[in-house]
């Protein structure tokens, strides 16, 4: 009886609520508090819906007289602009107050926006099947700085535009600052006052590291400096193992969380929203370390923030933890016939590469107004003994012996090279080698496998050392010099039992001799002479280098070690990785990333697939460290053929599925699912130099805490494993599996995308012009041999 009563009451409640809900739209006042109205200050972001994006700033400027002249601006040809007028958007427009059309006060000129502005037509629809050749034609840029203290009050429905600061004016004509700006929305050409407006203003990076897992929030601030609506496109890098799991678009004061969707569906929804005039943002993945952010319908003077959050495990090399944040995508070379690569084009030359994705680069001397701020909070759990950035100037504070706060120095805020931060902890232990997390999906863990200490005492076998140097145009100058020095150092440490070969590739491959040479003093001199003769020019036909390095008979008496030295600036990463898998055989491939913004995805995966290790040599650090580390790896046998006995733990879905070898100084992180709570001992068994060895690790899953990063890290590593298999396996089911994992765990992948649409407000006019955010070529890379020639 009670059950019937309960059911009846539930039905009654549902019916009443349903009836109430059905009437809400027409009779919202009947249920207090009423539904939202247009004047609800929370719903709306300070923009009047009826007149947002309706003001013709250029027309209005003319009525004030102090505004700069208006003329169309082609981003290819910098505007002949004076200091642009200033928009006070973002301040409240709902206050009441003065309503005159314009006035001068406290050094500012004001203007209330009129209505009825119609946006001009756009040139390209996102996702419509390839790059367009249309060049955006935009009107005068407008900057966005306001002195809010001097703003006059407004009536409801009005918006305030601050069109110029009096102290920027001279004889009634606005004057730009004498020096190029950093932090504004413009670039300036060398020797010119021409300013090039950019829609990406600032990137803010907030990272926090707990143990060996980083959680990083990246906020990109887009602002429309033009007088017309735009769509911003920005191709940018993230770490190759980043598990991107959150995406939030901020419009005014409102935060809209984006949702993970199948990529094609997300692209279609985005295109539809864009076409209908809604503010929308779409994040897609072009490579595991290259992403495209599209933001549609940014109204003149308005700002849209997009924040994405990711997790990634830090690398631990030779006792040093390394946090890396890439800042710019280097110019990629794509083999002839390629259409799905990453094109490198001069700023504004839309579609000229013929590739599906294009990065627009600033010419030499042009400076980007886009700057970056970065903070890393480290909570290591053990005293931090050493901390340094080999790439940037940093400020460091130490709240406690186990914690550090690192901030990028303001003078080093140009985003043209990878940010690298390294630190050591007291003692040899890895804090929290076993991390566990439980939720309603079950248990997830990560485990850092440390190589046994006794490996460092074991001698190595004779080597057949193959140096492969990338001599393409992008390595011109400092990168090739560093590669040569690195190879030279390595050559000089060979012993008489070793042999060596030097292979160079650019548009084609060549080598020192038909077969590896014994490392005699005479041969080494010959090798050094050959090394010094290498010049950089031409494209990056990396596949030729791989063939030359791997396609010759194996010397069974020696361990073949291939040292691949490159910046990795190629657009056909999957093809290269597939070739490495197919051809590596018994060889070990060690990749050296040379330069300031290397393609870490390619280099890391080459090393993984080649059962070797990766090292990076920046422009500002010597090659000594990398060579020493390389010899540490190859001078001692690795612990190979790993098998893990999980003890009492019921473990499944371990990734990487093919466990890598353990080299001296190179711990490896594995991840998996687990059931069970009993403390146990995990035993890792393998062979080093033909001798069986074992590592015992005590784990206690009872300490499982809420570590929301772990499911994402697990899913990301599973996706990486599937991606590796997909490079040599045409089975389309792998793509579906990647997509399924990504959707289930809410992660970015090649087959998923994040989409956010602000459906509360339709912007006026057409969807506007697409503007790609141009970026500088990486530090040390020549524009003329990379962008201009490609």
């Amino acid at each position, binding site marked *: 009886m009670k059950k019937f009563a309960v059911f009846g009451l*539930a039905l009654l409640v549902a019916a009443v609520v349903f009836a109430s809900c059905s009437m809400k739209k027409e009779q919202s006042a009947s249920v207090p508090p009423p539904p939202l109205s247009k004047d609800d200050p929370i719903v709306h972001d300070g923009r009047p819906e009826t007149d947002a994006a309706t003001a013709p700033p250029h027309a209005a400027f003319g009525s004030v007289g102090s505004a700069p002249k208006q003329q169309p601006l082609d981003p290819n040809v910098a505007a002949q602009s004076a200091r642009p007028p200033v928009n006070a958007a973002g301040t409240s427009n709902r206050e009441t107050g003065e309503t005159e059309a314009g006035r001068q006060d406290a050094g500012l000129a004001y203007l209330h926006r009129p209505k009825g502005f119609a946006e001009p037509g756009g040139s390209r629809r996102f996702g419509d099947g390839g790059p367009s050749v249309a060049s955006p034609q935009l009107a005068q840029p407008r900057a966005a700085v306001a002195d809010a203290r001097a703003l006059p009050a407004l009536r409801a429905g009005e918006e305030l535009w601050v069109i110029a600061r009096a102290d920027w004016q001279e004889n009634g004509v606005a004057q730009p600052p004498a020096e190029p700006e950093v932090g504004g929305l413009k670039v300036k050409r060398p020797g010119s006052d021409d300013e090039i407006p950019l829609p990406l203003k600032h990137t803010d990076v907030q990272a926090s590291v707990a143990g060996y897992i980083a959680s990083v929030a990246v906020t990109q601030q887009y602002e429309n400096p033009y007088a017309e609506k735009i769509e911003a496109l920005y191709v940018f890098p993230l770490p190759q193992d980043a598990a991107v799991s959150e995406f939030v678009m901020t419009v005014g004061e409102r935060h809209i969380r984006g949702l993970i969707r199948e990529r094609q569906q997300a692209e279609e929804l985005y295109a539809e929203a864009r076409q209908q005039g809604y503010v929308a943002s779409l994040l897609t993945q072009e490579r595991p370390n290259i992403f495209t952010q599209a933001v549609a319908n940014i109204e003149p003077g308005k700002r849209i923030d997009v924040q994405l959050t990711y997790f990634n495990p830090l690398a631990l090399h030779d006792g040093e933890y390394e946090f890396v944040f890439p800042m710019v995508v280097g110019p990629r070379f794509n083999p002839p016939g390629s259409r799905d690569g990453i094109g490198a084009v001069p700023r504004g030359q839309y579609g000229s590469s013929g590739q599906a994705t294009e990065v627009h680069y600033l010419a030499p001397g042009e400076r980007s107004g886009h700057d970056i701020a970065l903070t890393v909070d480290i909570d290591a759990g053990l005293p931090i003994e050493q901390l340094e950035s080999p790439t940037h100037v940093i400020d460091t504070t130490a709240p406690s012996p186990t914690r550090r706060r690192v901030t990028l120095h303001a003078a080093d805020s140009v985003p043209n090279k990878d940010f690298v931060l390294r630190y050591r902890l007291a003692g040899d232990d890895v804090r929290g080698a076993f991390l566990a997390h439980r939720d309603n999906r079950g248990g997830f863990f990560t485990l850092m496998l440390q190589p046994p200490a006794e490996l460092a005492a074991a001698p190595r076998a004779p080597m057949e050392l193959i140096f492969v140097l990338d001599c393409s145009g992008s390595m011109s100058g400092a990168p090739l010099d560093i590669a040569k020095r690195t190879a030279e150092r390595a050559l000089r440490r060979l012993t008489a039992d070793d042999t060596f070969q030097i292979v160079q590739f650019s548009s084609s491959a060549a080598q020192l001799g038909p077969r590896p040479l014994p490392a005699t003093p005479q041969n080494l001199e010959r090798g050094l002479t050959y090394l010094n003769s290498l010049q950089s020019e031409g494209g990056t036909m990396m596949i030729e280098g791989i063939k030359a390095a791997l396609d010759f008979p194996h010397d069974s008496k020696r361990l073949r070690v291939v040292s691949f030295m490159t910046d990795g600036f190629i657009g056909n990463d999957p093809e290269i990785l597939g070739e490495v898998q197919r051809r590596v055989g018994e060889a070990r491939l060690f990749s050296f990333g040379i330069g300031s913004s290397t393609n870490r995805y390619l280099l890391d995966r080459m090393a993984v697939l080649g059962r070797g290790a990766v090292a990076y040599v920046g422009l500002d650090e010597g090659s000594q460290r990398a060579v020493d580390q390389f010899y540490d790896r190859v001078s001692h046998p690795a612990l190979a053929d790993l098998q893990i006995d999980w003890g009492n733990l019921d473990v499944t879905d371990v990734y990487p599925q093919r466990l890598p070898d353990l080299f001296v100084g190179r711990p490896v992180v594995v991840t998996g699912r687990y059931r069970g709570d009993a403390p146990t001992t995990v035993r890792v068994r393998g062979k080093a130099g033909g001798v069986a060895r074992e590592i015992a690790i005590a784990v206690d899953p009872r300490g499982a805490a809420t570590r929301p990063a772990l499911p994402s890290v697990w899913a990301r590593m599973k996706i990486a494993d599937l991606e590796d298999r997909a490079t040599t396996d045409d089975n389309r089911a792998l793509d579906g599996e990647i997509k399924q994992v990504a959707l289930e765990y809410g992660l970015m992948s090649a087959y998923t995308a994040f989409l956010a649409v602000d459906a509360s407000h339709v912007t006026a006019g057409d969807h506007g012009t697409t503007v790609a955010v141009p970026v500088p070529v990486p530090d040390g890379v020549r524009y003329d041999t990379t962008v201009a020639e490609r």
Partner: protein
Amino acid sequence: MTRRRAAALARRGVVRRGLVAGLLALTLCALPARAESAARFRTLAVWLDAGSEPLAAYQIEIRASDGATIVGVEGGATAAFAAPPHYDPAALQSGRIILATFTTAAHVPRGRTRVATLHVREAAGSAPTYRAEVVAAATPDGRRIPVTVELLAQQGDPA
């Protein structure tokens, strides 16, 4: 009043509160059909009514019928719930969205509060329906409370 009568009333009270707390509330919100040639975007406000209790955490499940695709989740009207709630991506693949959040703000809302706004795309010619159900709600000290949920079409939507 006899002790038996008092006990019966108390039991009934418990049952009633249990009903509200256990079942929570169910809302069916049928939005008017529209015959349009193009898909439309609109917003739906998610309101929770916690009565006199302070609301610090909630989890709700919203199902949409064919034709509706959620394209964004916005935070609520009060500072405590201004950040957009989190969602369960796995549930999203089965045509529903589970939203959840909690706040540690000093001031949490009571009564009827807009806690989120859904941004949705509705296919041309479709008249999707939406159903919301509260899975759980709690006070700042973690005590479960009964709440009701409503989905309201936002005013100002293009008709």
